[in-house]
């Protein structure tokens, strides 16, 4: 929530700039957006009509870069480096930060070896510095570094831009969660009703016993 609030203004700025620009100037905006240290979401910029119009032009590679930053990882860039423009150091850093978010989507415990391989980091110290300085301090992830087990336990990771095909599974998870919550509420209501009924029965039983005790006392 915090990261979204932080980047909402930036997204608005870049979207309004992108709407009014074409061609090379638009490509510069894309480079600026993908280099900005506080921006991690690019769907809004991608959906600007002028950005979509870059497809098929000489600047279509920048559209590909924007798509890569919206959905891809550092490994995706490396495997397609030939067809993409060279990235600036700020862009490389951003892409690596986004790669951590992608890894955190699938696993909550990220082994150091996997992270070092995915992020092209040679040693543990460098990896930990990156995770602390560039990820945790940026507010995109929260977690614990377990040096003994050599893993990063992710407690929170900011959401990346969604692909259309991901919405289906998200809806299904939400529906399951909703059904679970509703069933739980129904169970709780049933238990409350049961407790009330048992309480009433208990009171009635107690009263009957007391009446019988009185009767027996009178008889005696």
């Amino acid at each position, binding site marked *: 929530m915090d990261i979204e609030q932080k980047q909402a203004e930036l997204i608005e700025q870049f979207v309004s700039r992108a709407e009014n620009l074409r061609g090379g100037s638009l490509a510069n905006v894309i480079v600026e957006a993908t280099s900005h240290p506080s921006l991690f979401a690019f769907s809004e910029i991608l959906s600007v009509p002028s950005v979509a119009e870059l497809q098929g032009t000489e600047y279509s590679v920048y559209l590909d870069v924007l798509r890569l930053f919206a959905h891809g990882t550092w490994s995706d860039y490396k495997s397609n480096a030939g067809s993409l423009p060279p990235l600036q150091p700020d862009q490389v850093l951003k892409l690596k930060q986004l790669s951590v978010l992608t890894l955190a989507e699938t696993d909550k415990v990220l082994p150091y070896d996997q992270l070092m391989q995915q992020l092209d980091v040679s040693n543990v110290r460098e990896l930990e510095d990156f995770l602390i300085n560039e990820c945790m301090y940026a507010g995109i992830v929260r977690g614990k570094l377990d040096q003994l087990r050599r893993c990063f336990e992710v407690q929170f990771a900011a959401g990346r831009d969604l692909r259309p095909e991901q919405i289906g*599974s998200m809806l299904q*998870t939400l529906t399951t*969660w909703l059904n*679970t919550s509703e069933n*739980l509420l129904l169970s*709780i209501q049933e238990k409350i009703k049961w407790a009330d009924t048992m309480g009433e029965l208990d009171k009635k039983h107690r009263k009957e016993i007391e009446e019988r005790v009185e009767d027996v006392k009178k008889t005696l």
Partner: protein
Amino acid sequence: DLDSIYVYDEAAQSQVQQDRPWSQDPNYFKRVKVSALALLKMVVHARSGGTIEVMGLMQGKIDGDAFIVMDAFALPVEGTETRVNAQADAYEYMVEYSQTNKQAGRLENVVGWYHSHPGYGCWLSGIDVSTQMLNQQYQEPFLAIVIDPTRTVSAGKVEIGAFRTYPEGHIPPDEPVSEYQTIPLNKIEDFGVHCKQYYALDVTYFKSSLDCHLLDLLWNKYWVNTLSSSPLLANRDYVAGQISDLAEKLEQAENQLSHSRMGSFLVAPQRKKEEESQVAKITRDSLKITIEQVHGLMSQVIKDILFNSVHQ
């Protein structure tokens, strides 16, 4: 209307001090209104003491038969049950605090003291009664408040009691039975001996419009803290103590029953009734412990179902 209670009328308070209506009637004061701020400060202070008794003073005013507690401050004193008038150690602090308060524009006087009974309920011990009697002799009007921070956590609501002592030699009128509370075995004698020397006042709370706004803002944070905590884990020492106390009470009841076994036909019906009520009390205590445990478990199970049973 919400904030009008915070207005301090110095003239009216001076008039009350002159009239001293409480001097004619030991039961004059019947109600206590505690501000949200004072309550929070007292409970947080009490909780911070852990298993050690802490104490502090309250500032406020009088309104008819009610104490209005506007604010509270902690005293640098611990272990109030170890000596009479523990606050004597903090006289210098109290005087300086009161003077600085007046300079800062806080006009309310000290109207009482509060202290904590961690885990053993809200009542006045012999030492507390002596302290409060002394206070009521020299610092009227004065109120005693007791907070149990441990039971506050386990019960999920603030365990608080407000009391005033009767003068020496005063025979109190027959009072309706107050709400039952579990008293540990090692305190039961102290409780029983002095319970007629004081009476409880009704406690209500109030907050300002600013308090309402701030508490609304903190609502989410409160819920996150409530959901994240578990009374089963936080209070396990206290629960273990309760169960141990229950076992001792059972043993005591059993010994009394076995002693009276031979004379059970001869024993007066009155005494039999007392024994029954002792066992009934033990049953009630055990039910209370169980209910709190079940509540804690229920919250854990509900959290588990809500947050751990859904998978991607």
